[in-house]
């Protein structure tokens, strides 16, 4: 059995989880190979020799055979023992654990060339899932498997600018978006079934790199908007503290249209200022909400009258919106299907 227990996300604040990662740095899942779960280990006699009794939570799998070795992780120790006898849930082994322990796992050496195979899915500009690659990873001695998927996801980034500067906001799938992984166990003469494809397990990547000493490690949390987060807010991604809009030239701001905003109507709000800092005008315009769950470009209104010298631009949640979500479902290998948009539910 292989179970993931660490995921590439960071809590930017209690209850606010950012699943957005910089793709040019590690994106790590961790899991543990667990052939059998240990309930406890006792020190005992087996006939006339000292032994360990490894009590499992269930009857051991059939490849736990007498005479074969087990790697047992329990009580913070990793030991290799030989199986002497099996009785129900109890496996009697040569003694390696000096003291009783509780919990842990036992992996058999009969599973030769064990590795975890990971299938990585990305999403293209048409909201279609496609397979990015297959990655094989061997576990460490203690059964821990570390999956770093950033190398594969980097191959689907595009450095150029495909935005046409003709709509208020647009997702750019090759600049950042969602990904999903499935895992399965493989060993000699055995290929397991892939874990279920679940969009609840989607994480996200961005075509960026974090700098040393920046907060949240390799996570893009500073730029991820959440509902019910105010007065904390997300930043726009920009190299400029105050970008300059040159009237008559194509301009956009980049932001993460996070999956947390699904089902809400988001609007761009602007305040325009004259030379004295007075507000000359303001405007609220709705965003296109089906561009959700991806890095997005945002255009500003433009065409400002000559007395406007500066503008504040920001995003607001203005109410319940149409529900535009990806149709779910497992995609068979080699099958590229476009999921049709669900009909919006008018509320």
């Amino acid at each position: 059995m292989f179970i993931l227990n660490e995921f590439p996300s960071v809590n930017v604040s209690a209850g606010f989880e950012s699943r957005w990662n910089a793709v040019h740095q590690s994106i790590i899942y961790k899991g543990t190979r667990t052939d059998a779960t240990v309930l406890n280990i006792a020190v005992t006699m087996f006939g006339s020799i000292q032994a360990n009794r490894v009590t499992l939570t269930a009857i051991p799998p059939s490849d736990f055979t007498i005479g074969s070795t087990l790697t047992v992780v329990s009580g913070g120790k990793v030991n290799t023992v030989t199986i002497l006898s099996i009785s129900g849930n109890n496996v009697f082994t040569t003694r390696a654990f000096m003291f009783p322990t509780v919990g842990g796992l036992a992996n058999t050496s009969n599973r030769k060339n064990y590795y975890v195979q990971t299938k990585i899915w990305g999403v293209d500009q048409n909201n279609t899932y496609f397979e990015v690659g297959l990655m094989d990873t061997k576990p460490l001695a203690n059964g821990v498997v570390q999956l770093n998927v950033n190398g594969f996801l980097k191959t689907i980034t595009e450095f150029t600018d495909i935005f046409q500067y003709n709509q208020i906001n647009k997702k750019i799938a090759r600049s950042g978006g969602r990904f999903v992984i499935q895992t399965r166990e493989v060993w000699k003469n055995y290929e397991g079934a892939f874990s279920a494809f679940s969009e609840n397990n989607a994480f996200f990547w961005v075509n960026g790199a974090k700098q040393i000493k920046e907060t949240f490690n390799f996570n893009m949390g500073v730029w991820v908007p959440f509902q019910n987060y105010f007065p904390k807010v997300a930043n726009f991604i920009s190299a400029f503290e105050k970008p300059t809009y040159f009237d008559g030239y194509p301009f956009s701001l980049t932001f993460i249209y996070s999956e947390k905003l699904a089902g809400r109507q988001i609007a761009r709000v602007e305040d325009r200022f004259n030379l004295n800092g007075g507000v000359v005008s303001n405007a609220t315009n709705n965003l296109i909400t089906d561009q959700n769950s991806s890095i997005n470009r945002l255009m500003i209104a433009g065409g400002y009258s000559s007395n406007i010298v500066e503008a504040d631009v920001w995003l607001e949640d203005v109410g319940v919106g149409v529900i535009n979500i990806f149709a779910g479902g497992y995609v068979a290998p080699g099958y590229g299907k476009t999921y049709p948009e669900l009909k919006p539910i008018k509320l």
Partner: protein
Amino acid sequence: MGVRLTEKKRIKIDNGCHVSPIYLNWLGTGGERNYWLFDYLQTHNINTSVVGNFQPYITDNTNAESYLIEIGRGAFKTIVCGAYVDIEDVEGIKTMLYSPNVLLLLNPTTWQTESPKWLGVKPLPGSFKLYDTDQKKTEIQFTLEFPEINIQQL
């Protein structure tokens, strides 16, 4: 009145007329695009290089064209741009100097009707002085390398 999700990003609006505009759009380290307009004065240069040559066997010296025949040439154009900007602006502009994707707008007057047409250009690497800390404004100068010119090669 909705609930604010992001910071209020302050945008400076430039309505001015610009002579000789060079409008650059580049990829920033967060995955974003950044923009700046360089104008007024640029220096255009052409850089050429030799590929190789050979000596033809001359039988008719009177009508021979030359003793060395070139098999090709290399050339690329560079433009030296500069700007006089606020320190806070040069902090953003400097990211263009190390961006792996810098694009130049080729159709500044017609991009709104046809779509924007971008040419990939390369800021030449080097050491750039950005500013002294007692300044308010500073001058920045850099060279953009244009794609190679395609020349016949024997």
